[in-house]
């Protein structure tokens, strides 16, 4: 049995083991409330016992295919940290580092870098040659290997990530509401290319993460458990996170006219249309990776237009498509509607 700790030089380490889908969220949110109230910085681990879908705080519920989730028995929860809708299951081990807000950089990017960097040592100790790239993604090659998010809960900052031992690309795509099968296939293709599992020993990963975060923060790790107040917070959060109003989310942006899906930082897929011209395209950096066009008016040049767009920067898309007559101009207008701002 572990005991609660309060030493100022202590890094509390709490391994929640396997937890229900709901508790795999509410347990660490309760830790944030505890740290906000004066509990020591805390590194926690949790593995969801069952699959579910989780939305970033601001994301629209209609980004998720709720009919698919209901059919598959996947609950949908909303977290207090950022990022998009994601599919989680027992093939992913989640870690959360939580500190008093006053102890992290006021600059969010710097805070994120400071609190993600120790995780790199953990991946490497587990045999995964991970890097933190310029887009603040933990990667191996061009693949994102860790889904992260961050947030401030009262007076505590928490950064979350995961060791993806297995990743179900099909389900991760299926939980998203997408307007047509072409976009679904393209999202799946890009997800397979840019999001990947790194099978590794989770115990080795956890052990190394504890050492790395303790070292980076100058703290002494000590196995612990939630305090009675934190357990009370868990129960309150269980109620909050299952309430319709919380799952519906805050009053935020109106639904964008173009469906855009971020695969990883700098990689996204969109579906847009203008009059009878329909576009599904994937973008890497600022260049088109693949464009797929449909028009209800027959046009023999569609395949040539698709081929011409590969590798073209978004800013030059109108000029390239202008070479394809009035159809090209309609396709260009569809392209112009996608700006990545909804991501």
């Amino acid at each position, binding site marked *: 049995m572990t005991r609660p700790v309060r030493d100022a030089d202590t890094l509390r380490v709490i391994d929640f083991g396997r937890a229900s889908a709901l508790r795999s969220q509410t347990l660490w949110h309760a830790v944030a409330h505890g740290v906000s109230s004066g509990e020591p910085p805390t590194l926690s681990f949790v593995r969801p016992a069952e699959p579910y879908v989780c939305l970033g705080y*601001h994301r629209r519920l209609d980004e998720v295919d709720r009919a698919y989730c209901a059919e598959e028995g996947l609950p949908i929860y909303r977290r207090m940290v950022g990022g998009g809708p994601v599919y989680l299951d027992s093939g992913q081990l989640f870690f959360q580092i939580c500190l008093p807000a006053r102890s992290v*950089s006021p*600059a969010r*990017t710097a805070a994120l870098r400071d609190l993600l960097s120790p995780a790199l040592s953990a991946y490497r100790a587990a045999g995964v040659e991970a890097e933190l790239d310029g887009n603040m993604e933990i990667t191996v090659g061009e693949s994102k290997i860790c889904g*992260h*998010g961050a947030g401030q809960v009262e007076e505590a900052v928490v950064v979350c990530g995961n060791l993806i031992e297995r990743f179900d690309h099909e389900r991760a795509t299926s939980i998203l509401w997408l307007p047509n099968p072409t976009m679904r296939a393209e999202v799946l293709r890009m997800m397979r290319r840019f999001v990947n599992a790194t099978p590794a020993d989770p115990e080795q990963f956890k052990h190394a993460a504890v050492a790395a975060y303790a070292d980076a923060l100058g703290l002494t790790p000590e196995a612990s458990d939630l305090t009675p107040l934190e357990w009370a917070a868990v129960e309150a959060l269980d109620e909050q996170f299952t309430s319709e109003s919380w799952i519906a989310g*805050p009053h*935020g*942006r109106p639904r964008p006219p173009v469906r855009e899906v971020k695969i990883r930082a700098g990689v996204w897929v969109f579906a847009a249309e203008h009059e009878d011209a329909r576009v599904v395209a994937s973008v890497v950096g600022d260049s088109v990776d693949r464009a797929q066009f449909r028009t209800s008016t027959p046009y023999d040049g569609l395949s040539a237009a698709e081929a011409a767009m590969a590798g073209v920067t978004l800013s030059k898309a109108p000029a390239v498509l202008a070479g394809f007559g009035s159809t090209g101009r309609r396709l260009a207008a569809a392209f112009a509607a996608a700006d990545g701002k909804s*991501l």
Partner: protein
Amino acid sequence: MTNAHTTGHEILVEVSGYPVAVDRMYHADSHMWVKRLTPGTVRVGLDALGVETSGTLAQLSFVAVGDELARGRAFGQLEAAKFVGPLVSPVSGTVSRTNDAVVTDPGVAEHDPYGEGWLVELTSADETELADLLGTPEAITEWFGRTVEDYRLRGVIAE
């Protein structure tokens, strides 16, 4: 401090490379500005350092109109770099209006923080709390310049 000038609605000066509107009050810790609109009614927004340290704004959301706020409580949330954090109210009051334009396009708050990028308006703003804010051009520019210098020394923002 250099280059004081008036834009459409605000009087801006440049302090250590950042624009600062000196026709309003500031809450140092939250990097929020407060501008009186009518007696008892104020407009609130992020200052240029608050924008800079947030990074590229991805999402903004606000509490509902009619909600009563205590000083130091969140009147909304800001997301940048997948990091969600509270927008902290610099004074107590009742939310009377929120800026839909910045919800639809958070970039407005980034590019015009003292003008079109305002966040919320409060009525019944607490006069005692307003008196606690930085309220003279001298105090504002001295605080802002000192904070920029501190942030640069600590590597919080670039030189």
